[in-house]
């Protein structure tokens, strides 16, 4: 049961990532792309945790945590660029 659930979840996340990528590609505006990227990072966290459950390993936790932090900072930087051009003023 768990295996099936994990597989289904994997496919959900994979599909989600593909959709995110499609949005990234299609845009049409830059904020759309940033949003797609941000969402992708969040879905990647899900994927990592899922992988951890699947392989029964806790070692991916730090990576997931870091994606959460770094994804956020990346988004901030991109938005700041759109808003002000200069991300560190």
């Amino acid at each position, binding site marked *: 049961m768990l295996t099936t659930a994990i597989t289904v979840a994997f496919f959900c996340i994979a599909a989600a990532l593909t959709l995110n990528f499609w949005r990234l590609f299609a845009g049409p505006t830059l904020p759309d792309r940033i949003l797609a990227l941000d969402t992708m990072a969040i879905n990647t966290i899900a994927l990592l945790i899922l992988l951890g459950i*699947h*392989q*029964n*390993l806790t*070692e991916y936790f730090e990576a997931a945590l870091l994606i959460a932090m770094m994804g956020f900072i990346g988004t901030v930087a991109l938005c700041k660029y759109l808003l002000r051009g200069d991300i560190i003023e």
Partner: protein
Amino acid sequence: MEALAALIIAVLIGCGTYLTLCARTFSVVLGLSLMSYAVNLFLFFSGRLVTGAPPLATNIGATADPLPQALGLTAIVIGFGMTAFVVILALRALGELGTDQVDGEDEKP
């Protein structure tokens, strides 16, 4: 999976190479970053593809080869230092030369 890995390497390095050959500093920097990602991946792959066994001494049984990971880590860090340098150098070149062209077309003969 091995074919997929090789394909990833081929595509990423090819893309990086193409960008590196562009005539503008920004593209070159993008290309170098891309190439650097791909090369680190390559270095990592030299330890082969192992699923679900991070190289921790507490893990029992065969784990992934830790050495390519350590090498890759060092390579990533060095690559970052180099990328940072080249980004600023590109800016400096823009400031000094007034252009971001690098194809030598505006060179004096």
